């Protein structure tokens, strides 16, 4: 157990676009205790995805220190960072991002190819994960044969199948109808409560954010704790 799971110290992120600097995150510091379900809210363009991607190890800060799961991320090479992601991060995308030519089960199995699990162990893990998200009967369906809500549940199964330290989700309900969104949020709640998973979810939907234990607002590059 890593506690806190995430520690950010004096993070800033500056993009250079057409000769001008765009400062997205400014001198931001905070930490996330293990087992937290955190929602990050904020208007579009406020830097929520940027912040999440720094924690996910798919982006690097312009300055500052990022420690996630006990690892100083900004010091890792690309290859090491990829290996680190495979072990510690389960990422849920807004647009599901399933591989269209693979079945639900195969999509979920994909991250397990990076582990030392045997074929039958992999199959067991895949079944468990898909049953957990309520898709035990859709294993052999291709993404195009699933509804948006079902696709996102496969995406969630893919994120948890390798039992990562933390689940990061960028607007996971942004493309879903109300009912499917509720299903996903309920699953996040269960993963957090029953399995003790640390979850960080970016959203601009207040009803989604309410399902988290903790809400933080990102505005003008600064994190605020709500009153």
């Amino acid at each position: 157990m890593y506690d806190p799971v995430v520690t950010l110290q004096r993070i800033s992120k500056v993009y250079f676009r057409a000769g001008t600097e765009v400062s997205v995150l400014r001198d931001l510091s905070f930490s996330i205790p293990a087992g937290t379900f955190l929602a990050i809210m904020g208007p579009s363009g406020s830097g929520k995805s940027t912040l999440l991607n720094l924690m996910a190890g798919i982006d690097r800060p312009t300055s500052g220190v990022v420690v996630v799961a006990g690892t100083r991320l900004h010091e890792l090479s690309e290859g090491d960072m990829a290996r680190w992601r495979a072990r510690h991060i389960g990422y849920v995308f807004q647009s599901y991002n399933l591989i269209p030519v693979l079945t639900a089960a195969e999509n979920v199995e994909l991250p397990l190819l990076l582990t030392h699990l045997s074929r039958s162990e992999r199959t067991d893990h895949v079944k468990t994960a898909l049953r957990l998200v309520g898709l035990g009967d859709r294993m052999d369906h291709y993404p195009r044969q699933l509804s948006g809500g079902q696709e996102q549940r496969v995406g969630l199964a893919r994120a948890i199948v390798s039992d990562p330290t933390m689940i990061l989700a960028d607007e996971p309900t942004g493309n879903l109808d109300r009912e499917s969104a509720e299903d996903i949020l309920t699953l996040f709640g269960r993963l957090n409560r029953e399995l003790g998973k640390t979850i960080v979810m970016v959203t601009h939907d207040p009803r989604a954010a309410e399902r988290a234990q903790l809400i933080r607002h990102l505005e003008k590059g600064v994190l605020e704790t709500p009153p």
Partner: protein
Amino acid sequence: MTLGRLIFRNTVRRPVRLLLTIGGLAMVVLAFGLIRLTLDQWQAGSRAALKNRLITVHAMSDELRLPLAYKDQLAVIPGVRTVHFGSVFGGVYQDPKQSFGSFAEQAATFFETYPEVVLSDAERLAFQQDRRGCIIGHRLAARFGWKVGEAITLKGTVYPGDWELVVRGIFRSTSPNVMGEGELYLHWAYANERLKTTEPDRADQVGWFVVRAADGINGQTVAEAIDASFANSSAETRTESEQAYFAGWVARSGALLRGLEWMSGIINGIALLVLVNALAMAVRERTREYAVIKTLGFQPRHLVSLVLGESLLLALLGGGLGLVLLFPAAQLYAVMTQDRGYVSSYLITAETIGACLSVMLLVGLLAAVWPAIRLIRMTTLEGLRHAG
């Protein structure tokens, strides 16, 4: 599931593009294969030829004829063991398009001159004893369904008229590049006899003599002695070992051969472009999927193997299809490139197959380089933002 399965599914995911790509590659392999067969055919003759077999032709041109009377002069030249002779017969069966090589040969010396011919003693005897007899290669027999004992009628082009022949034997060859298996051989004496009445001016002439040098005698010395003895006659001769004869033939076509080699290089360049184009399109379309795979923690080498695997699979599918088509195409090609009724039998050897597949393998490897580099350079974030 394995990455191999993902490679396979990616490869077949756009069927039309898949067909166009492997179709394009197959055409290249087909053209490459036919060029190879042509080059092989030219060169194999000189490799397989017998060293102690000398060919004497008219010094001015292979196509001019020599007097039959030279036979006796040749026989007394020191070092000469046997003298055989023959001519192009140019027979046509039913339809001029269905042509094949046919030759009028002195029957008595034929088998000792061409030990490559594999035929039972009974069939040899039957051929030699029947003036109207002929022997045919097994490929020719298979082509027209001819059987031993069957009477066939050929229309003569070099020797005019209708010719009734009887098949007396169907042979195989131990060296098909020198003694083909798609040809017909009949008695020169029979052909010449008729010519004496129809075109007496052209009778008693032969296209070539084939002289076998005695064992332990230098063929070159004998060849020089032959040409010297006919020097300053009305028809001077050019004598070479069969090997040199074929080699000279290759050398005379040198520029053409080099041209063909160049062309095979160029068409393989086309294959490379076809494949690079198809791969680049596919990889671009799937940019986002590769970025997702990277996000999951896969390494650049995994992405390289996905692209390389797809490239090699496409190349081998195209190469395989090309090879399958090469067999019927080689037959068609042989008929279309016939020379005065002489149809080469293009043999698709293991080497030809190997050459086609190795070239495709190389094309597959090279084609993957650029798309793979682009994928490695792409950052995960850029890839995830990629639309489509």
